[in-house]
């Protein structure tokens, strides 16, 4: 009994649909950070990201009996969160920039730095600061790939409107860009190190 495998997401969803709050809580535990990550990578501030997260979970409740592929509820949540992010951006008078220029570098709106009182090792703090300078698409891609549990390539492809074959190369370019920012602090000649 205690060696039983953890329930699949589809099982959790079905149990939640029949009113099992524990199953629902486990589902939110499993995918809450993913939804949050999607929201945060769309240049939404904490309050807007919180609204998007809540809206996304309410959408799942509304559709709980109608999810076509319950085992892929994580992808459904991520896709729904993305749609709600775009809506939120348009509501606040901003559009999501998808031009190539915006892929690797964040073009505008310097983000606030670390929350005050947040203690990170210096190296980690540098990594975080560099990460925040990446373009939205890079941030989203790396957040999805770094998520726990990681998001499968097939789902990343759907979520980002990116061909499956482009994910690996884009991942490499984004990480390369991140490394250049990290190494190029104070030097415009990133990559020459």
């Amino acid at each position, binding site marked *: 009994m205690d060696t039983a495998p953890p329930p699949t997401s589809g099982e959790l969803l079905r149990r*939640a649909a029949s*009113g099992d*709050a524990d199953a*629902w*809580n486990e589902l*939110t*535990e499993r995918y*809450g*950070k993913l*939804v*949050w*990550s999607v929201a*945060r990578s769309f240049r939404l501030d*904490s309050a807007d*990201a*919180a*609204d*998007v*997260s*809540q*809206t996304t*979970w*309410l*959408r*799942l*409740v*509304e*559709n709980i009996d109608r999810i076509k592929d319950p085992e892929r509820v994580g992808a459904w949540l991520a896709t729904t969160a993305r*749609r*709600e992010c*775009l*809506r*939120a951006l*348009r*509501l606040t*008078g901003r*559009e999501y920039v998808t031009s190539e220029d915006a892929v690797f570098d964040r073009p505008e709106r310097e983000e606030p730095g*670390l929350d005050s009182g*947040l203690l*990170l090792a210096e190296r*980690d*703090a540098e*990594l*975080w600061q560099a*990460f925040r300078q990446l373009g939205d698409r890079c941030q989203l891609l*790396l*957040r999805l*790939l*770094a*998520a*726990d549990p990681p998001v499968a390539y097939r789902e990343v492809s759907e979520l980002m409107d990116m061909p499956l074959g482009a994910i690996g190369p884009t*991942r*490499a370019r984004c*990480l*390369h860009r*991140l*490394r250049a920012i990290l*190494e190029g602090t104070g030097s415009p000649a990133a*990559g020459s*190190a």
Partner: protein
Amino acid sequence: MTNSSGRSPEGDEQLLQDISRVLPVADPMPDHVAAAARAALTMRTIDAELAELLSDSAAEPTLAAARSHRPVRLLSFATVGGEVEVEMQVETVGDRRNIVGQLLGAASGSLTLDSAAGSTEVSLDEAGLFTVREIVDGLIRLRCTSAQGRPVATSWVLL
């Protein structure tokens, strides 16, 4: 072995692992967000039919110039069979929202508005028109009983 740019599959893997480790610390999901996710299930209206959000002017890409002349947001909802249809215009005044709408197919002369502030009854006139003034921004939905006697709830929308 050595790579001047530090670029290698192993190096990429390590960097991604570092991101994976740093993100939850640097940009943690607030506790209230997790709590709201857990609480979402309690907002379920088990017997209610969903009047799904069909269109939302805020979800349509528009030129910034056009948008600035369109302070009113248009939303429409309907059940699958179309027994209940809702259209509404939302006007933004600071952090307050005014709604003027029409709900067709209700059994009675009122609807229920669910919002962060709780639930309020809103009356419908003979044509199904309703007005809600100065509600605080946030998530809302409407509920009613259809002419067929079924409870109906709209999708939640963030105003």
